[in-house]
């Protein structure tokens, strides 16, 4: 596990922003108090290098979604600091967070990513439309071709398969060229073939377009598309694996089970 280089001066922060698309220091998130107190994140230090594809794994309830939500500005931290690029998100108000999500972050949920009233193309350009920006047409064309949806642009979500819908969601996340894309179990609802096409698209966006992607998954073969895997348990990062393969990830996950830590997970 690498130690996080915390910027102490503005220059350091800028330098860090150059290297890392996003990072967090001592991230803590506590839900409830008293009997219902749950520590979802326990002083997590984490950073996501630009142009890197990171998978996050761990048993159910280990804090994966919480980590992503806090890093993406969808949820507030109990303590700790988080940055997207050079922007410290823990210091932003609701307006600032909204703008950050709109301009700097892409998000792909497990399901229900699209507005049913809009066509695929309108869904893709939605964040830019909301911001009142005109999409970079060349980039947009590239993204659309990469997800292979050119034929389906005028269709509504109900007329698309689950896999196609997730690819539209990927295209939307990419279209505005965010600093980082967070995907929470983007293939969780898909069969393996549709899942594979979404995953390879995400990998392509990292390799060829220089995107930064963070993805939560329970599937070792999905994790094998990533450049590295972070393992979370009980709100802490417990391990990291570079250049993962499905077999190695599976082995590592089994080790969790035998260790009896967070054994409730559906892996």
């Amino acid at each position, binding site marked *: 596990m690498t130690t996080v280089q915390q910027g102490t001066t503005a220059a350091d922060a800028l330098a860090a922003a150059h290297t890392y698309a996003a990072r967090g220091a001592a991230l803590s998130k506590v839900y409830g108090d008293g009997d219902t107190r749950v520590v979802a994140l326990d002083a997590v230090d984490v950073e996501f290098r630009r142009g890197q594809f990171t998978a996050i794994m761990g048993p159910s309830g280990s804090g994966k979604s919480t980590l992503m939500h806090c890093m993406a500005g969808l*949820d507030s931290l109990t303590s700790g600091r988080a940055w997207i690029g050079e922007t410290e998100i823990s210091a932003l108000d609701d307006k600032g967070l909204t*703008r950050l999500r*709109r301009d700097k972050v892409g*998000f792909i949920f497990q399901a229900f990513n699209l507005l049913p009233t809009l066509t695929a193309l309108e869904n893709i350009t939605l964040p830019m*439309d909301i911001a009142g920006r005109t999409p970079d047409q060349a980039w947009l064309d590239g993204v659309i071709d990469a997800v292979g949806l050119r034929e389906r642009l005028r269709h509504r979500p109900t007329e698309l398969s689950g896999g196609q819908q997730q690819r539209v969601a990927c295209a939307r996340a990419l279209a505005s060229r965010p600093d980082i894309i967070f995907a929470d179990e983007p293939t969780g609802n898909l069969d393996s073939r549709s899942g594979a096409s979404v995953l390879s698209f995400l990998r392509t966006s990292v390799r060829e377009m220089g995107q930064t992607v963070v993805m939560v998954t329970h599937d070792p073969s999905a994790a094998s598309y990533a450049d590295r895997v972070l393992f979370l348990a009980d709100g802490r990062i417990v391990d990291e694996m570079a250049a993962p393969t499905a077999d190695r990830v599976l082995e590592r996950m089994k080790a969790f089970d035998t260790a009896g830590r967070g054994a409730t997970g559906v892996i």
Partner: protein
Amino acid sequence: MWRTTWRSLMAHKLRLAFSGLAIVLGVAFVAGTMIFTDTLNRTFTALFESTAADVSVEPAAAFEEGVNGPSGTTAHLPSALVEQVRAVDGVAGAEGYVQTEGVYVLDRDGDVLDTGGAPGVGVSWFDDRDLSPSELTDGRAPARDGEVALDQATAEEIGYTVGDRVTLLTPGPRIEAEVVGIFTFGEDGGLAGASLTAFELGTAQTLLGLGDGFTGINVLAADGVSHDELRSRVAAAVGRDYDVTTAQEQADEQSAALEEGLSFITVLLTAFAGIALFVGSFIILNTFSMLVAQRTRELALLRALGAGRGQVTRSVLTEALVMGLLGSTLGLLGGFGIASALRALFGSFGLTLDGNLVLSAGTIAWSYAVGVVVTLVAAYLPARRAAATPPVAAMRDDHVAAERSLRRRTLTGSVLAAVGGGALTTSLLADGGGAAQLVGFGGLSLVLAAIALSPVLARPFARSVGAILPRMWGTTGHLARENAQRNPRRTAATASALMVGLALVTAFSILGASTNASVDKLIGTSLRADYVVSTAVGQPFTPEIADRLRAIDEVDAITQERFGQAMLDGQGTLLAAVDPATLDSTVLLDYVDGSSAGLLGRGLVVDEPTADSHGWDVGDTVEMVTATGDTAQLTVGGIFTANQVIAPAVVSLETFTVTGGAELDRYVFVDVADGAGTASVRSAIETAIDPYAVVTLKDRDEFAGEQKGQVDQILMLINALLVLSVLIAVLGIVNTLAMSVLERTREVGLLRAIGMTRAQLRRMVRLESVLISVYGSVLGLGLGALIGVGLSRALSDQGISELVVPGGRLVLFLAIGAVIGVLAAVWPARRAARMQVLDAIATT
């Protein structure tokens, strides 16, 4: 299953509140209208039924006079008749009385107390308290000349108490008197705004110039003698010249007359209750459809877990029953609030209703019927659909209930539109009678057609008119437009409520504007007189006024106008009496045949519709029977184009008086010599009428204004009622939007997650709301314009000669429609903006 139902009720408190609110509102408006109508009837019935006599004797009327028309007679009973009645076996007591209209109490500034059109009535005080409907609350009975008793409401309003001196205007002279007593009238003390002044009998007789005669006799039955029996005996004793009626008969007669007199208001209120019911049912139906649609997944899950179809349906229905009962009860309470509001509203127009609000069993029954039945029906249809959804729907993520086809709607709507359009067109071509009914029928068909077709038209409307939204507001506008056309049935149902209200407002505006323009035109062309002297509401006044005006040098001509009713060749007609010599220089009639000279002698001039219906020509002889039973053979001397300033049939003052007409004027037209100084003449006239505070002087413009003022007042009353129905429509929009926002929680979460600001989200909801309300407004304006034009044309033979479509006002209505949309969106928009992003996304 019961527990699931209960849990579901508790788990969705917000939804519960919404649908509950819909029921409460719907029921409240129905109950409120019914309570108010009952209260109105009670007050007037009490006014007429407050006679203490078992049997009463009055001069025989040759025919039934409607309460709408002026009575215009001075028929009376000789004093000897009282003795004759007392002598009848079974009579415990009998007393003659005098009663007349046209007695007004002046306040301390010398102005007439405003009774808002209700009569100022003078009566003699009954010495036999068993025969009196009045009850003294202070002081004593008037016992001699120069003493009066006032009804409590009037005394309180002016601030007179026992011992004060008052000035009174009577049909005869103006008199001064001392207030010696204050009394209440009838059981509820309600006079519906009328003022009542009681005199000692002799004084009253003198005032009316009756000598020792009476206008009626009240008779009390001895123990054991039935009223009917007593009536027969008294009738036998007094002969055929007098009408003898029991209290019951009188009450029946008067409430029948009352129904006729109040029919306008009753029809209006019933129509309003209908609208309330319709809009209320809409809201309930709408809400429940959404509610159940939203719960499809939950219900499907129950099905998947083994619940039968019937169980699911029953669970939903039980929920609806509980809510229907609860909502109806609260709605009934709310109805009292609405009835009070209506009472205050009518009060501000001079129709004072005293006493408590009346809650009848009918109101309670209807309230629960409406609340519970509509809710059950509203819940049953979607529940059946929900129960039919396959259990697998629970597993699917975004199960969209299959959209039902709009084919049937299109078909029904088109047929109705064709029928309505046909009826309206026919009414335009049809002449006179029946046209108004055709317009009514056509209008109703068109409203129904619009309701049926509104879902069909919603999408094209949102697409075409809604196209400006994306252009003006970009993505938020685009999303708003898409949301509005997402569920055309819901959009249409929401807009329809507004449509109905606005259609009526528009129709009445056109009718009102056309009426006013017609009044202007009429007065411009037919009123030759420079001034008109009259009371505001056509109350009678003494001919002394005309005499004083005649004495003014600059005055060229005076025409007195009186009104009465008569049977002409067996048909009741409103009759006017004027001076034949001066008529042409004050009121110009447009003669088709003959002239004003035709009034001389026993002459009669009639308007064209009357002449046509009887087939009269100039020179024909017509038999006239007046209310007093006097008859006369009249010769038709002229036929004129129908004219609102005058009655359909006109005779000379002399003919009128000879046949028993009262010598009381209702209008005096004054023509001033050309070249006379306006200001000096006016002040001379004002000085002459100054002692008679009940009448006012109006020049032509002021007279036109007064006539139009009456039209405007009625219009305002109608509009005030309709504003209430528009209000329900607004609440309907709020309800629909709030439910839609709730339904789209996840979308809201998604939009916020990908960077939509709260302000943008609010705007999105607001624009959707405006689009819906503008849709309703446009439909309503279109429908209203058709109905209004049809109605104005249909009434053209009633004197509405002009057709005016007040464009500015219609544009204003459209703008109001848009503003309603903005206002209705405030709360739902705020709710949407307040949603926590993560919670919203996590919502299933």
